[in-house]
């Protein structure tokens, strides 16, 4: 057994260190976790996401105390009990709703930053893949949460999305009814999505966050120039006091101060939305109680799903489903379809730069069209944008194959 200091007072630092290795942990996780100096505010999005997830968790716990997962009570428990009876219930709901929407904006920024700077490339594939897994789980979490107030949009979004599983011959196996536990979304559907939303998916998300952080620890975070840094050597310099010459800084407290600044700005905007513009995260249609015999005239998902929804729309059912499926998994493959050896920001990579902006703009176009009614010219535009999206993958393989080593 290890040696213990007889004189260490219980719960003093020494006492804890001997039992939990707190000093080692502190070093590995913060004071000697090295971050390149050359990174901009976009790299702070990771911590912004972590903080937003924390807010979702806390506000969710308070909502959970009054929410009733029952088709007859769910709507009122949210719109009456929580909103007007529970002291500050409205605050938790607005925080939860706004955070659920804004978190996707930050995730998209985080993803596009990674793509722009090539942070998914060789050595960092697992960071990208674990991040994509997080994105998909977050999507499921958002969808299951959207069901819970049991308004019109909840009901019909549930109907439409679960109907996706009737594609091809799946219908014959009764898959849709099995998923719903009923012929239509009903009580069984609501309670199982409630379980997913408050227990199973959050557990998976927490696990994936740990994995995502873990994948980052060894290959280290990328930097603005995509420069390869000898982290050990640079760390020695820093520890020797040559902070100017060293290319790295410790995560805590040096880089964290930048993170905290960015978070400060972010939270000003965030709470502005919570207090003054919470309605942007709440669809007016969802303030009508669910009615299985009346469809809202135009069903669309929350803004963060619009692009993939629009890919589904212009095609006939089964090809549409396939296109939709491809859109969901295509991004997972990014580290492997980018064949270029260069880890560099997009503006140094020639055609890739063009590809990046076409991709980003196409996503925005799809998002806008997804919200517009499916009529006339919008149908055509939607089809074009969806086809462009599907062609971007093969285009990337060609472009990156042609790319010369920098």
């Amino acid at each position, binding site marked *: 057994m290890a040696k213990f200091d007889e004189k260490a007072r219980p719960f003093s630092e020494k006492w804890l260190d001997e039992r939990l290795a707190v000093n080692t942990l502190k070093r590995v996780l913060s004071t000697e976790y090295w971050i390149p100096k050359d990174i901009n505010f976009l790299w702070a999005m990771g911590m912004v996401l972590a903080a937003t997830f924390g807010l979702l968790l806390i506000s969710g716990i308070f909502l959970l105390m009054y929410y009733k997962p029952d088709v007859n009570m769910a709507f009122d428990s949210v719109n009456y009990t929580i909103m007007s009876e529970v002291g500050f219930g409205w605050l938790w709901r607005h925080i939860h709703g706004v955070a659920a929407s804004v978190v996707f904006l930050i995730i998209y920024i985080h993803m596009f930053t990674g793509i722009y700077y090539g942070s998914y490339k060789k050595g960092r594939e697992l960071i990208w893949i674990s991040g994509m897994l997080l994105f998909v789980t977050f999507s499921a979490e958002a969808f299951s949460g959207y069901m819970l107030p049991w308004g019109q949009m909840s009901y019909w979004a549930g109907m439409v999305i679960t109907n996706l599983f009737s594609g091809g011959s799946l219908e014959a196996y009764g898959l849709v009814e099995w998923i719903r536990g*009923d012929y239509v979304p009903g009580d069984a559907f609501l309670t199982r999505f409630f379980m997913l939303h408050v227990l199973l998916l959050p557990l998976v998300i927490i696990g994936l966050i740990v994995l995502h952080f873990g994948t980052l620890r060894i290959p280290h975070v990328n930097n603005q120039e995509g420069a390869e840094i000898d982290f050990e050597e640079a760390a020695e310099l820093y520890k020797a006091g040559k902070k100017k010459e060293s290319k790295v800084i410790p995560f805590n407290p040096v880089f964290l101060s930048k993170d905290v600044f960015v978070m400060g700005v972010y939270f000003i905007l965030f709470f502005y939305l919570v207090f003054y513009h919470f309605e942007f995260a709440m669809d007016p249609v969802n303030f009508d109680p669910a009615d299985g015999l009346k469809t809202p005239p135009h069903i669309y998902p929350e803004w963060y799903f619009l692009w993939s929804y629009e890919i589904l729309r212009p095609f006939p059912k089964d090809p*549409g489903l396939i296109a939709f499926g491809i859109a969901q998994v295509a991004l997972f493959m990014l580290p492997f379809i980018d064949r270029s050896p260069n880890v560099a920001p997009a503006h140094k990579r020639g055609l890739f730069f063009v590809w990046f902006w076409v991709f980003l703009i196409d996503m925005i176009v799809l998002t806008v069209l997804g919200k517009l009614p499916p009529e006339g010219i919008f149908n055509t535009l939607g089809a074009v944008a969806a086809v462009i999206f599907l062609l971007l993958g093969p285009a990337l393989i060609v472009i990156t194959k042609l790319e010369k080593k920098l």
Partner: protein
Amino acid sequence: MKEKGRRDFMGMALGGFTALGGLGALYAMKRSWDPLPSVKAAGFTTIDLSAAQENVLNVEKWRGKPIFVLKKSADMTQDERDIVIGSDRFHVSIGLCTHLGCIPAYLPDAKKFKCACHGGEFDTAGHQIFGPPPSPLEIPPFKIEGTTLVLGEEGPEFKKMKDAGLIV
């Protein structure tokens, strides 16, 4: 050597039991997720057709889904999918668009169904005539009893349609 054989055997036995238990647990989980018997039992509805008016859409409810009942007027094209009772013809279908399940609206003047979600259209026999829907509106299993319709049970007329390949 002998020692190793024994350990291998124990490993395999343990693995085998674990696999069996795992399969059992998966089956239990699958069954727990199945629709409840009470949900399945509530799957019958009767609809009285005698009071229906021509070209006016009635929407009934069966298994939580809307059911379209439309008494056809003489100028509407007759179809093998119509339900004939005496001298009247009816179009009866599950009122969910076969694309992604929205409820189409009936436009009595144009005599067609229009789905607002992605613009799909169906004629008065439920055939898709425009847009993304891949198949005609579904006909629920029915049985004719005089002028009433029992949904959820397959009567001879339904079976005939099924044999003729009219039910998808």
